[in-house]
């Protein structure tokens, strides 16, 4: 017991005496949150829209005012000629266009063609579809507010964005960044730390001692567990207070699930350290093998449902995918353990699998 304590203390010393890595460990989460939270956003605030108003009546004017007043849109021009739309798209002075036909607004005339048309620059398809939906929603609500009786035989769609009505990007990114940062730190740092021992030659000396090699592993993992928990708390604080993220569900459950994920990542780091013998390779596998799949397959940047099914299968192997679901469920949807027991179990099984494999491959000798 005394021995393990001494070893853990030594590991803490290593972590805190390495200034550069320390900067990375604690600086990275902060930077990522700030970057993703503020700078990179796929929201559509102030989208530039050009209106071709061929109706020029009080209803079209009212609609245009309403659109311009909405924070998501910025009317950059009101023109007559539909050809202006192409010009505007090319010059990038607009990303969407609303064409109001001459019959727009008149309640008594039954239109023989579409009273309005929405055109979007779909080179950013995500934004384009959002814009279309918003715009339609605004127009429909404006129309129904004027006519007391809704037009007959109309099937209205009621589009509502549950949980995140203002479609704040932060809700998407923060859980993703949490997964990414925790995974990177735990996997990379753990594997590097163990491999460094091998490279230095001190592992050799440790093996030839009564100290059980298994304790080496445990002792190495603990400082990074502590560092990761600190990072987790920092990320949560930043997200809640700076980015206005809610924590609708149980905070303790969130922390417990995060602790589980940290353990999963640590055990993955262990596994990597067992199969590599140089720090560079360990770092490379961690970065390339972990970071890329996490970004691609956890679902926070690209929807998994849109991917071809082989890739969807692969995404199931990425631990951060499950953690992402868990975090969103707890933080944004306010759900409890009953809803996420499946994902939790998967993470648990993964952890046990990694640990089991590491122990099996761990050698008490050099060969």
């Amino acid at each position, binding site marked *: 017991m005394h021995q393990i304590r001494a*070893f853990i203390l030594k590991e803490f*010393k*290593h972590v805190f005496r390495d200034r550069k890595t320390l900067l990375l460990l604690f600086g990275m989460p902060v930077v990522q949150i700030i970057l993703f939270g503020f700078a990179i956003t796929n929201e559509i605030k102030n989208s530039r829209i050009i209106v071709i108003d061929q109706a020029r009546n009080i209803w079209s004017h009212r609609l245009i005012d309403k659109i311009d007043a909405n924070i998501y849109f910025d009317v950059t021009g009101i023109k007559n000629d539909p050809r202006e739309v192409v010009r505007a798209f090319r010059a990038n002075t607009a990303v969407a266009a609303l064409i109001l036909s001459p019959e727009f607004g008149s309640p008594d005339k039954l239109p023989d063609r579409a009273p309005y048309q929405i055109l979007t620059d779909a080179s950013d398809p995500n934004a384009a579809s959002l814009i279309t939906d918003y715009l339609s929603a605004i127009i429909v609500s404006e129309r129904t507010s004027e006519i007391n009786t809704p037009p007959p035989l109309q099937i209205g769609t009621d589009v509502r964005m549950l949980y995140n009505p203002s479609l704040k990007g932060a809700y998407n990114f923060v859980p993703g960044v949490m997964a990414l940062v925790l995974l990177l730190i735990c996997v990379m740092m753990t594997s590097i730390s163990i491999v460094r021992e091998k490279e*230095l030659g*001190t592992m050799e*000396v440790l093996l030839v*001692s*009564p100290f059980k090699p298994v304790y080496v592993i445990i002792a190495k993992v603990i400082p990074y567990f502590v560092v990761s928990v600190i990072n987790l708390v920092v990320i949560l604080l930043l997200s809640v207070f700076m980015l206005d993220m809610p924590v609708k569900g149980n905070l303790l459950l969130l922390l417990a699930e995060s602790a589980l994920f940290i353990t999963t990542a640590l055990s993955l780091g262990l596994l990597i350290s067992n199969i590599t013998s140089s720090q560079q390779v360990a770092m490379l596998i961690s970065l390339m093998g972990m970071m890329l799949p996490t970004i691609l397959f956890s679902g926070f940047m690209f929807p998994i449902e849109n991917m071809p099914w082989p890739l969807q299968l692969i995404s199931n192997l990425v631990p951060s995918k499950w953690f992402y679901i868990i975090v969103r469920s707890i933080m944004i949807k306010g759900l409890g353990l009953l809803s996420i027991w499946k994902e939790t179990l998967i993470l648990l099984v993964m952890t046990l699998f990694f640990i089991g494999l590491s122990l099996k491959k761990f050698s008490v*000798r050099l*060969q």
Partner: protein
Amino acid sequence: MKVIVDNLVKSYAKGSPRAVDGVSFSVGAGEIFGLIGPDGAGKTSIFRMLATLLIPDSGRATVMGYDSVNDYRKIRSLLGYMPGRFSLYQDLTVEENLRFFATVFNTSIEENYELIRDIYILLEPFKHRRAGKLSGGMKQKLALCCALIHKPEVLLLDEPTTGVDPVSRNEFWEMLDKLKSYGIATLVSTPYMDEAVLCDRIGLIQHGRLLGINTPAAVMASFPRALYAIRSRNMTGLLRDLKTIPVVRTALAFGSSIHFTLRSEGEEDAASIPGVLSRQGHEEIRMEKIDPSIEDCFIEILAG
């Protein structure tokens, strides 16, 4: 005998030559046994097998009667091991390193301080300095302390003097000598031939095979022929010209003189050499018969 090595064989990759090719020797209590040979001779592999870190392909290694393969756990608690390149924690201080290794071996610095006191005295002024910032000689001393801290029965030192200056090397061997009185069996490897005379017994090793085991004195006495040293004003020219004399068998530079042997044992042949050389223009020729050093013996065995 505390350490017994019996016909150890080890090769690393299929088809590649054996790193260790049937090596046998033993080390007793209070003895310093030197494995003398160049890099790649197989020294480190032998050490690793004795330290229970590698499994031999065939043969046996026993430490204190325990088998290195089956009873490795027992061996690991009574070995002091110093692998090459001083395995120390660079960012821990001298004292922290020592304390850590003491704890790992379930002991404390104070418990066996007697053993390391003479060495640690030199380190003590730097005990708060990080190990990475020590010079080679100091790292070597610290590594030795860490290996001794738990009062091992057997000390395995793999090239502890490589890359260290001659003065520190000398001091190191003086320290090893003092440890003999504690009954510790010490196995040391080194590529420096001149350190061989400081051992009780030596084994010359090359290409995974032992070329001979004996006391240094016996090895030197077994040199099969007469050995001469010669010097002149122009040493480079001397070496070249010596090699052209038909009766000269081997001629090798040895610092400030050249050691050579003759094909025959006749005294007249030796006496004729200075004459031949001065006729070739050499000046200030000084020649004498000498006792062979370990290096002379090693080269002779290798060449023969």
